[in-house]
């Protein structure tokens, strides 16, 4: 018996086994953490769970921004190399140029991730799956749609391709709308497919819906009228703001030019700026009612006071203040109705140095409107030069201060409410916010009565009138500042007002920047827009006529 051969074999096996056990023990004990980490790094991934972005609604529940699930097909170019015929098939389904796709995949060949296309519809994804090409995977994403398009673009804003807010409410409320993506730990196989979920790390939280104060019907009316006015008058730009008198809610806010948030090309345009809150202008005659309010508050003037504006001009230092014609003796109401510079300047110079400034400040000029939209301008209202008579006179007829259309609308809101100041908001309010009384009601009532004359037959803006309803407002025509001082060619046309005067419901401000038509002034250019928008808006809102009745 060759027993030694038997033992040799046993010893050999024994040595091999001991060697293996030793190696296992070595790896398992000393190298354990390193190996575990390396193994997991190759197979365990933290994947995000995308969530649905909240819907933005108007005040009546009409959708303004909706997310719809989309898929983005991708490949891992380091593992999957598509053949030419495959690329042609894929490009056909995705409706992109085959050469373009081939180039893109070529460029991404060193990487582990390349989109074939972003955000495709589920039907297209199904067609792509039907090609049965190994290695094409889908990432779940959401695409944002804006059904109102251009009409509400400036308030609603937009998101970028990665679904984060860039402008408007989309930006202001991004955190709430976005929700919170969930995360989970998953096991992936060698080809990157998720084989199973290991653990949920954080629970996904869907985005919250946001309801705006906008009324899409009024928004559309405002958009249509402003757009046609800007085109007809060949204006550079224009804005329209409509506020709810009782709550300070923004019912409509439109600007021209606008942009289409549904296309990426449309977003590059200069139309993205929300001019109604970011751009400021000298308000000109539109603030005269507030200057006259300061006069009534001072006690030195009453609604029956008469100012002699003869000979239609006067000098303050070296500066000439003039009216187009000599209007002679004017009552307080007539100063507003005819928009007399001389009248307002004379009144302002009789008042205390800060009186007009204080009224403007209380009306909210120079303050943040508080709409909640990003990029609100504060305008400019300063008391630095109030010791100079020319500065005080200019302030009273609306030069030397800057306001945004939104601020102007808010200052008119204080008149429409009978002297109560409110903040503006673009969000639907369930309760009426805090209101601060800033003017005495009797003074405001007198001013409003005077302002009704502006839209009367002898006023500067008969075209702002609305049949059946009483309307109060004021025009403004402001020369723009250029490098050589005030420019006689370029100007801004305003109309600001509210209706119905009996119980005011809406405040509307119309601004047309640099109209180039034959008609240029606020009464000719901006007032008709006001009239058409208010006439329809009051009916849409179901507000009873308070004016002269015809049977």
């Amino acid at each position, binding site marked *: 018996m060759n027993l030694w051969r038997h033992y040799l074999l046993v010893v050999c096996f024994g040595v091999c086994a001991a060697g293996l056990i030793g190696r296992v023990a070595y790896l398992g004990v000393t190298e354990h953490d390193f190996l575990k980490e390396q193994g997991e790094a190759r197979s365990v991934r933290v994947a995000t769970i995308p969530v*649905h972005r909240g*819907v933005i609604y108007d005040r009546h529940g*009409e*959708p303004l921004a*909706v*997310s*719809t*699930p989309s898929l983005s097909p991708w490949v891992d170019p380091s593992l999957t190399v598509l053949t030419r015929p495959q690329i042609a098939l894929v490009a056909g389904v995705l409706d992109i140029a085959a050469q373009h796709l081939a180039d893109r995949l070529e460029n991404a060949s060193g990487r582990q991730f390349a989109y074939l296309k972003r955000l495709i519809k*589920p039907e297209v994804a199904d067609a792509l799956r039907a090609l049965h090409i190994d290695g094409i995977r889908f990432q*779940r994403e959401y695409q944002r*749609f804006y*059904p*109102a398009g251009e009409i509400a673009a400036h308030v609603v804003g937009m998101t970028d391709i990665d679904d984060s807010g860039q402008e408007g409410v989309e930006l202001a409320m991004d955190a709430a709308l976005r929700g919170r993506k969930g995360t989970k730990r998953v096991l992936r196989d060698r080809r990157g497919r998720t084989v*199973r*979920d290991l653990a949920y790390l954080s629970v996904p939280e869907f985005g919250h819906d946001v309801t705006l104060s906008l009324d*899409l*019907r009024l928004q*559309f*009316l405002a958009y*249509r009228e402003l757009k046609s006015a800007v085109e007809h008058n060949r204006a550079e730009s224009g804005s329209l703001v409509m506020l709810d008198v009782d709550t300070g809610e923004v019912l409509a806010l439109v600007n021209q030019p606008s942009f289409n948030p549904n296309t990426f090309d449309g977003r590059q345009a200069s139309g993205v700026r929300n001019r109604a809150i970011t751009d400021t202008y000298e308000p000109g005659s539109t603030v005269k009612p507030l200057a006259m309010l300061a006069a009534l508050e001072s006690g030195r003037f009453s609604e029956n006071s008469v100012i002699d504006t003869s000979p239609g001009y006067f000098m303050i230092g070296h500066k000439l203040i003039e009216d187009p014609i000599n209007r002679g003796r004017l009552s307080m109401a007539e100063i507003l109705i005819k928009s007399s510079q001389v009248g307002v300047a004379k009144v302002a110079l009789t008042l205390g140095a800060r009186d007009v400034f204080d009224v403007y400040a209380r009306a909210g000029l120079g303050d943040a409107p508080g709409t909640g939209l990003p990029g609100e301008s504060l305008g400019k209202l300063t008391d630095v030069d109030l010791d100079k008579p020319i500065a005080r006179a200019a302030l009273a007829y609306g030069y030397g201060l800057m306001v945004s259309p939104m601020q102007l609308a808010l200052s008119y809101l204080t008149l429409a409410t009978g002297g109560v100041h409110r903040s503006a908001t673009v969000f639907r309010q369930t309760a009426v916010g805090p209101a601060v009384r800033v003017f005495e009601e009797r003074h405001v009532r007198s001013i409003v009565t005077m302002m009704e004359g502006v839209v009367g037959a002898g006023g500067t803006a008969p075209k702002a009138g609305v*049949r*059946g*309803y009483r309307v109060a407002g004021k025009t403004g025509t402001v020369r723009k500042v250029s490098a050589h001082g005030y420019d006689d060619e370029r100007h801004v046309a305003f109309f600001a007002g509210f209706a119905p005067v009996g119980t005011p419901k809406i405040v509307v401000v119309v601004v047309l920047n640099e109209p180039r038509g034959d008609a240029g002034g606020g009464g000719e250019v901006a007032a008709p827009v006001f009239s058409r928008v208010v006439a*329809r808006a009051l009916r849409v809102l179901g507000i009873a*006529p308070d*004016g002269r*009745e*015809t*049977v």
Partner: protein
Amino acid sequence: MKIRRSAWTLAGVVVFAALVASGVEVAQTSQQMRALFSRLSVNQAKQDALLHEHSRLLLERGALSAYQNVDRIAEDVLAMQFPDEVERIIR
């Protein structure tokens, strides 16, 4: 001595049984996990489809009830006109 041996055997059987039971349990749990995971995937797909449909319906409703649409139908189809004069309606 005899008792001790049978106690050991018993303990061995118990441990073995526990081992088998835990093995079965592990297999069952992972099977359950797979089933739940596939249900989750199905539900997620269903949720996606419903969200997609919901957003589409929202958009469709928005398009139909848009003021411009109502305005057009009122004027073109129903031959309604915007009243210039306000008249008091007496019932």
